[in-house]
């Protein structure tokens, strides 16, 4: 009987300890969550993921949105694109793709969703990964969207703008003209 009581007591003690630990964990998680929510209150999402693939030379719109999930307005936010060539494992200079601009948001109210839009020019064929990044004043941690992959198909055109007739024709025509001129002069000199 004494042993049974002792066992019961130990179980109770263990249960109490477990509850306390559990409570502390949850609190800790909440704290972390709160902290995380407090440092990354912005949520970014790319909306036009399925419309991004195309052919070199195409212009496409990258549509995204930014949401303030915190209870306070957030000021001084800059959003921009970041693009990586996944085939060559290189970041891409967005100036070539005409998408180097940053979009500045002065204030985003709590729970407010704002649209983001970039016009991007597919310059080179390949496979790419795109993210949207947001940085705000007073925070060391940037917010990024999910990664979107897309493919740009190559553009082949052997005679764009009908340049071939001119590119080939002009030198041939000049050589022909000068050959005739020289031949005429040689004939004149012979007689």
């Amino acid at each position, binding site marked *: 009987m004494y042993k049974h009581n002792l066992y019961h007591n130990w179980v109770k003690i263990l249960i109490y300890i477990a509850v306390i630990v559990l409570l502390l964990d949850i609190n800790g998680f909440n704290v972390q969550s709160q902290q995380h929510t407090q440092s990354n209150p912005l949520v970014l999402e790319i909306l036009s993921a399925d419309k991004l693939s195309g052919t070199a030379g195409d212009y496409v719109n990258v549509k995204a949105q930014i949401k303030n999930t915190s209870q306070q307005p957030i000021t001084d936010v800059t959003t921009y694109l970041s693009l990586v060539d996944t085939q060559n494992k290189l970041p891409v200079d967005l100036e070539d793709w005409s998408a180097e601009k940053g979009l500045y948001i002065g204030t985003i109210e709590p729970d407010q969703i704002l649209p983001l839009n970039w016009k991007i020019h597919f310059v080179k064929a390949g496979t790419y990964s795109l993210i949207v990044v947001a940085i705000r004043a007073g925070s060391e941690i940037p917010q990024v969207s999910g990664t979107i992959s897309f493919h740009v198909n190559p553009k082949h*055109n052997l005679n*764009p*703008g009908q*340049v071939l007739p*001119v*590119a080939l024709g*002009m030198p041939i025509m000049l050589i022909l003209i000068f050959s005739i001129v020289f031949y005429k002069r040689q004939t004149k000199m012979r007689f």
Partner: protein
Amino acid sequence: MVTYLWLKEIRAQVYTWKGTLWLVITSLLFSFTSYLLLTDKELSLLDQTELLWLLSKVIISVAFLIVAIDSSSIINSEFEKETAESLFLSPISIKDFVFGKLLASLTLWFAIFMVATPYIVVTSLGTHLALPFLGYVLFLGTVGISGTVILFFGVSFLYRSAKNTLTTSLIVLLAFSVPALFSSALKNNGLAQMFGRINPLENIFACLDNVLVDYRLSLSENWRYLWPLFIFCVAAFVFLIFSLNKFQKQGVVKSV
């Protein structure tokens, strides 16, 4: 008199293969450049106006180089081949001589421009920029090349040596071209900006950029690039007068 000298030079350019070779090489260069610009996977995806600007730069640069080489020898060859004495024993004045040679050098430029015209037209298709492209390349090229030729003629009369004149001409051309290689930071440097204001080549390129890329077609909108070109021509002419005075004091044949 000027006409006869000019025609003699044209015939010399054709019959000695010099001019004909230049034109064929120029045509091949333009063919390569226009094909590259229009078919290369990356470059063909430039804005067409940027493409036109690139092509205009190639045309002007090639023309400057060829005419510089030609004008370095067109006068000196008369002294080195000893034909100058026979020429000046006839009723030809130094003015006739210089104008005849100048017309011949400019004719080479016009021939290069004629060769470039089909390339300009084909790359401008769809932009309505063909005429402004042609007009401005012709106008700027003529003014810039005239000034450059006059400058090199002045050098020719001073040196009377084709080798020395050519070396000086190429150094001058290099000096005109080097700023194009500067990074944006260097271009913003005060000295670089000052040089850029007087550099004829840079003013020509900037004017073409203004016309083809920014679509500013009127002369008044481009005046800030044009007046340095005119000043350059005037300065080159003054230098030529100085050289000619020295030449006339020394005589056609420098020493026995």
